[in-house]
C-alpha cells in the first residue's frame, strides 16, 4: 500500500525528520486560509500516487495569491484528489535517500545519492557509481557507523554529514516500525547551514504486514475509479483498461501471460480481474463484475491445483444463469476438477477450450479481430 506524500510527511514529522510547513486541502475554497497559514511563495502539490508529478504539471511553485488560486483550481480539477500547500524552502543542494530491501542478501538496503530531485532509476542506469549503497542486517539494525559510511561516501562533511546520519537513522526506524517495502525522501534538501528538510516522501507499506498497522487503510483516493476500489475491498485485484476483452484469470502468473498473449495476437484488454488463490470461491461475484463492466467479450482462463476448476465453473455458471449475458464468453478452464468444470460450462451453453493461446485467439476473433 502506497501512502500519499502528505501521509509520508506526517510519519516523518512523528519521528523528527524535518519537513516544510504545510497544510492539506480538499477544495479550492480552503486555499486562501492555507496560504494565509503557510505564506507565499509556496508550492502546490497534487496528492496523487503516480510518479512524474512535476512533468505532468501537478506540482507548482506559486508566488502570488492569484497564481496560487489559478494553479490550485487547475490541479484540483485535473486530479480530483487532495492538494498539499507547502512552504517553499531555500536550499543549497538536493539529495536522494531511500531504504528498501535487497532480496539477494536478505538485507535492508540504503541507497543515497547527491543527485536529488531526479529519477533514481535513470541514475541507476546511467551513473550507477553515484549511488551509495549500504546493506543492513535487519536483525542488528542500521548502526550509526553505517549512516556515517553513507554520508562520508557521498562527500558530505561537518553539519550536513551529522544531519544526514540522524535523518537516515530515523528513516530506518520508520522503515522497521511500519514494515515498509520502501521509504524514500527525494529530494532531501540540504540548506545553507547543513541542516536538512524532506521536500518529498514516498512510503510503501507491505500489504502482508498491514494487519499490524490497522491505522492505514486503502481509501477511494488510492484508486482510479469506483470499480477498482470496490473490487479491492473484496480483495480482488481488478484493473480497468480501455480495450475490448474482459480478462478473468485465476493465478497471477497465468494472468500476466494471458495479458501478454492478448497483446501478442493484436487484441486489447478491457479489464483485468484475477480470481486465483483464496478468490476462487468468489467466481460468481467476479463473473458479475466482469459482466457489469460490459467488455466486448469475456475471456476466462484457469489452470489451478487448489483453485478447483469445478468450483470456479459453478460460480461462472451461476452468474451466467442470473444475468443471461449477451456478450460472448470464451473459457479455458483446466486443473483440479476439470472434467466436471467443463460439463458445468457446457450446461449453460459455453464451449470450454483446452488451450490458452487458442482461447486468446478466439476471443480476439470474437471482438472483431486483431487491431494491428
Amino acid at each position: 500500500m502506497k501512502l500519499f506524500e502528505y501521509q509520508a510527511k506526517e510519519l516523518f514529522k512523528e519521528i523528527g525528520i524535518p519537513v516544510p510547513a504545510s497544510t492539506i486541502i480538499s477544495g479550492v475554497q480552503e486555499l486562501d486560509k492555507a496560504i494565509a497559514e503557510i505564506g507565499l511563495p509556496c508550492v502546490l502539490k497534487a496528492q496523487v500516487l503516480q510518479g512524474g508529478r512535476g512533468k505532468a504539471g501537478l506540482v507548482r511553485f506559486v508566488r502570488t495569491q492569484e497564481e496560487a488560486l489559478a494553479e490550485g483550481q487547475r490541479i484540483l480539477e485535473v486530479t480530483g484528489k487532495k492538494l498539499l500547500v507547502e512552504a517553499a524552502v531555500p536550499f543549497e543542494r538536493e539529495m536522494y535517500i531511500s531504504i528498501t530491501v535487497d532480496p539477494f542478501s536478505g538485507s535492508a538496503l540504503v541507497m543515497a545519492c547527491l543527485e536529488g530531485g531526479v529519477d533514481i532509476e535513470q541514475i541507476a542506469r546511467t551513473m550507477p557509481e553515484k549511488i551509495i549503497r549500504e546493506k543492513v542486517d535487519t536483525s542488528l539494525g542500521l548502526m550509526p557507523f553505517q549512516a556515517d559510511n553513507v554520508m562520508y561516501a557521498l562527500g558530505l562533511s561537518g553539519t550536513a554529514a551529522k544531519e544526514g546520519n540522524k535523518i537516515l537513522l530515523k528513516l530506518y526506524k520508520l522503515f522497521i516500525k511500519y514494515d515498509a517495502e520502501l521509504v524514500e525522501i527525494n529530494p532531501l534538501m540540504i540548506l545553507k547551514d547543513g541542516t536538512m528538510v524532506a521536500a518529498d516522501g514516498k512510503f510503501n507499506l507491505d500489504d502482508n504486514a498491514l494487519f499490524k498497522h490497522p491505522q492505514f487503510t486503502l481509501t477511494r483516493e488510492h484508486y482510479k475509479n469506483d470499480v477498482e476500489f470496490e473490487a479491492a475491498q473484496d480483495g480482488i485485484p481488478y484493473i480497468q483498461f480501455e480495450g475490448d476483452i474482459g480478462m478473468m484469470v485465476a493465478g497471477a502468473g497465468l494472468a500476466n501471460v494471458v495479458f501478454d498473449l492478448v497483446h501478442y495476437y493484436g487484441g486489447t484488454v478491457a479489464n483485468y480481474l484475477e480470481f486465483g488463490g483464496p478468490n476462487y470461491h468468489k467466481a460468481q461475484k467476479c463473473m458479475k463484475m466482469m459482466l457489469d463492466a460490459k467488455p466486448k467479450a469475456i475471456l476466462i482462463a484457469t489452470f489451478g491445483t487448489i483453485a478447483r476448476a469445478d468450483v470456479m465453473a459453478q460460480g461462472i455458471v451461476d452468474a451466467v444463469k442470473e444475468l443471461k449475458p449477451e456478450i460472448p464468453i470464451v473459457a479455458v478452464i483446466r486443473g483440479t476438477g476439470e472434467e466436471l468444470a467443463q460439463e458445468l460450462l457446457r450446461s449453460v451453453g459455453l464451449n470450454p477450450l483446452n488451450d490458452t493461446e487458442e482461447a486468446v485467439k478466439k476471443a480476439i476473433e470474437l471482438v472483431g479481430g486483431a487491431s494491428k
Partner: protein
Amino acid sequence: MSIIIDGKTKVLIQGITGKEGSFWAKHAKEYGTNIVAGVTPGKEGQEVDGIPVYHTVRRAAAEHKIEASLLVVPPRFAKGAIFEVLDAGIKIIVVTAEGIPLHEMLEVRRVALSMNALVIGGNSTGIISTGKAMMGFFPYWLERVYKPGRIGVMTRSGSLTNEVTAEIVKAGYGSSSVIAVGGDPVPFTRFVEILPLFEKDSETDAVVMIGEIGGTMEEEVAEAIEQGIFTKPLIGFMGGRTAPKGQKMGHAGAIITAGKGTVADKVEALTKAGALVADRPSMIGALLDQALKG
C-alpha cells in the same frame, strides 16, 4: 536421481492436522512420498492418515530421522515454523504460505543463507520429483501435466506451472523435478541456487525456467550460464512483457528493481548468455526440440 527429494527422503509436515495439511499429506503419501511425521502444537498423540503427530518439531525429530519439512501453516506463523525446523537441524524446507510479511522474509532468507539451508518459498506450490515424491500441491493425477521425464522446471508461478508442464508433455517430454521457488519478492531460494542441482542431476537434460517481470532472478540465471556454472540447455519463459509500468499486476514479486527487472531486460540477458527464450507457452516444445534434438 532427481533433485532435492526422492521417494526415500524422510519428510515432516508442519500444520498436518489442518484442512489443507491433512489433504495434501494424504496425496503426498499416495504419490509415494515418505512422510514420517507431522507437527501441530497441542495435538501430539493424534494420527493423520497413519502419520504420527507431535507437539513440536524437536519432539518429532527425537523420534524420527527427518530430512525435509513441508510447511502448511498460515503466513503469520510461517517464520516461526521455519526457524523451528532450522533449529532442529533440518535443512530442506518447503514453504507454501502466501503473504508472509516482507521483513520476515528478509530474516528467513538471511538466516537460511547463513545456515546453508535450502528453504523454498514462500508462496510456493512446492517441489515434485515427478513420479517419485512431492512436497506441496501438484495435481499429479493429471497425466498430461505431470509425466516423468528429463526436463527440469523451476518456476515463480503456480498457475503458470501447470500451463507450461502441460506444454512440455504435449511436446513429448516429461519433467524430472519441478521446483516452485514461489512468487514472493524475497524468495528464500533463488533460481540461481537451484541451477547447480539441475546441472549435476544426471536425469535432467534441460531446464525450463518460468519467470516473471520484476526482480533480478532471471538475470542472475543468465549470469550463471555465462560463467559456466550451468551448461545444459535452458529455455526461459517470462510473463509480464506488456504489463503497464507502475501497475502492480501479478505477484508481489513483480516490483521492478531500480533500473532492472523488465521482461525485455531479462530476455536480452538470457539471449546474450545463450539461453533460448519462448515468447509464448506454445513455443516451449519447439525450443526443447531445438535444444535437445539439434
